[in-house]
């Protein structure tokens, strides 16, 4: 048999003595885990399918089947190889169960990731990341899970815990609802119910962009299993885990502005005419308008082109944005048309306060603050009475600011060109 330890790099931590030692220090205690029969059965299943010289590797030890006894189907043919210790051979099923029950954290950890979570790359990487399974030992993780591990994903807060059978359970809620008693939140258990949650924002408005920071509050998924957690997160923020996973693997396929717009066809084909080889300032404006963290929680990784970075920050998001999204493409089509117009000089008089008020109105709309401005708060330039006063004073009957037609050739149409 080959040495089972040669292929494992984990520390030896999982016997009951080490638990006792951990309890005596400042570290959180590793919880008592009862080895569940489904985990033990899965180990027996895996042992039955082992080829000669193969091992099932757990953190700190491995189990196998003695080669000579395999064909004979002998009763006592299991082998246990603890790290740095002599191997124990000739174990029957009862002996093996006792040995694995003594190492229940490592066995249930194997069972969770090899049998419950499965192989699918993004899901496995996400669930291992939740508890730092590729950095921390089983003992460290089980102790941390017993206390609750909290992770942020966009506006979601995930709290991972472990049951006394080693199963992972997860709670998901809005970050702003952290600390709210569960019974005050609407509980859900089916990940697909998240579709309802993400459709409208807190004010009942449709959310065309799932990664906009407008997720509504008031709900909780109190008790999800690993696959259900993954499905819930993927429903709230579609494809974010897959893209985050690709990025961690160094395989994120970024499609920059130029190539994305060159790919467009139909009514969006016009966007490529907006790039005129005169710099990329217009794309800076797009990114500042649409991709700022205040508008979208993805971290923008696309630039103008492979050699030309944009001048605005990509944001701090956990998950990446790999190409201009459909919202950006649709808006860019509009801007391509609007930006093809030539500037004109208009002449009208404003008081200094009126100029500042126009600036405040633009700021309030751009920052989504109009709903926050109180009805009687006339100190605010974007206050409704203030805006109505400005319109009454400065707009003519055709809606022209300062009575100046937008198009001098068509003085009655203030919306010329649109």
């Amino acid at each position, binding site marked *: 048999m080959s040495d089972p330890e040669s292929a494992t790099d984990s520390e030896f931590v999982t016997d009951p003595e080490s638990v006792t030692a951990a309890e005596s220090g400042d570290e959180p205690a590793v919880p008592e885990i009862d080895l569940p029969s489904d985990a033990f059965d899965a180990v027996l299943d895996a042992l039955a399918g082992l080829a000669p010289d193969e091992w099932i590797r757990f953190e700190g030890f491995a189990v196998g089947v003695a080669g000579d006894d395999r064909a004979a189907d002998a009763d006592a043919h299991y082998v246990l190889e603890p790290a740095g210790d002599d191997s124990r051979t000739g174990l029957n099923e009862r002996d093996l169960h006792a040995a694995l029950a003594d190492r229940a954290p490592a066995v249930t950890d194997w069972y969770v990731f090899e049998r419950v979570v499965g192989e699918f790359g993004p899901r496995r990487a996400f669930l291992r990341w939740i508890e730092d399974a590729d950095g921390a030992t089983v003992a460290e993780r089980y102790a941390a899970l017993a206390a609750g591990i909290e992770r942020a994903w966009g506006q979601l807060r995930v709290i991972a815990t472990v049951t006394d059978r080693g199963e992972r359970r997860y709670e998901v809620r809005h970050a702003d609802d952290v600390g709210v008693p569960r019974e005050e939140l609407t509980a859900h258990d089916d990940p697909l119910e998240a579709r309802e949650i993400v459709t409208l924002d807190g004010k009942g408005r449709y959310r065309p962009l799932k990664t906009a920071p407008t997720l509504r509050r008031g709900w909780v998924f109190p008790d999800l299993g690993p696959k259900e957690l993954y499905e819930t997160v993927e429903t709230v923020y579609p494809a974010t885990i*897959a*893209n985050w996973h690709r990025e961690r693997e160094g395989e994120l396929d970024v499609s920059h502005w130029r190539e994305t717009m060159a790919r467009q066809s139909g009514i969006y084909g016009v966007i490529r005419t907006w790039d005129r080889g005169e710099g990329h300032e217009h794309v800076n404006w797009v990114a500042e308008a649409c991709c700022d963290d205040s508008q979208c929680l993805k971290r923008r990784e696309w630039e103008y082109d492979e050699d030309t970075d944009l001048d605005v920050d990509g944001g701090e998001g956990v998950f990446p944005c790999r190409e201009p999204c459909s919202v950006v493409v649709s808006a860019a089509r509009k801007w391509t048309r609007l930006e093809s117009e030539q500037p004109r000089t208009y002449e009208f008089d404003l008081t200094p306060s009126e100029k500042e008020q126009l600036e405040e109105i633009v700021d309030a709309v751009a920052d989504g603050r109009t709903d926050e401005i109180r009805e009687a708060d006339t100190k605010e330039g974007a206050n409704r009475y203030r805006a109505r006063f400005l319109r009454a004073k400065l707009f003519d009957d055709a809606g022209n600011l300062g009575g100046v037609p937008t198009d001098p050739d068509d003085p009655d149409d203030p919306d010329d060109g649109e």
Partner: protein
Amino acid sequence: MQSLVIVAHGSHLNPESSAPTYAHADTIRASGAFDEVKTGFWKEEPHFREVLRTVEGDDVYVVPLFVSEGYFTEQVIPRELRLEGWDVSEWDSDGLSADQATLVASDVGREVHYCGPVGTHAAMTDVIERRAESVTGDPDVGEGFGLAVVGHGTERNENSAKAIEYHADRIRERGRFDEVRALYMDEDPEVDDLPEFFESDDVVLVPLFIADGYHTQEDIPEDVGLCEDHTEGYDVPETVDGTRIWYAGAVGTEPLMADVILERAADAGADLGDALATVRETTRVAAGD
């Protein structure tokens, strides 16, 4: 592991656009025919560009929830899914007969079965009839009734009219309804003049659209004269020039649409067990009291 990916248009403005896609995905999930059922969109998320990377299975069927062959099914979806070597000749279609093409999606480096759109499948004819049953509440509706199948004309896409005529012809041949007409929004015969084309006192009007939105909720009701302005609403049936019009709204919202999605996947080789029978049964219209 067998996976279904339903791809649809979606909307930046209207949450109802994706609602039928989700509803049919749920019906198919409940049937157990696939190990996983995913949805992808042009205007929502996950986008066509990223949906395949969320798919776990290795036997993948992509079914476009679109009414006809054209710009989206022939250009946009194959390009955005990154189907290597795609050419519309892969479908060898006359505009109605696209079935499937098996191509490698370079996004995931795996083969996918890219199916024809639901709207041109023969089973879609049954959905139009089922829609008439739903809106009248009568599983035996037909005698004494006319049926109008309505779509865009050829202005946007010549295959759009082909699909409308195809289903209208099939329903007419079945002889269930007294009269069947194909009508259009932007060409003759126009839906605006619906009462002129029917002798029957009752006509069911079924728009061949995937989701309710601007066309089915504003354009058609106003054009037909069900209401002056869509914000006023209308009754079902509503009498216009002596004809009682039973306006069905988008056919794509009919639960039996899930069956057409399954038929597309089955035609491309998916193993569905008894899911087709299950879905036909569970989406049936109950007989009225």
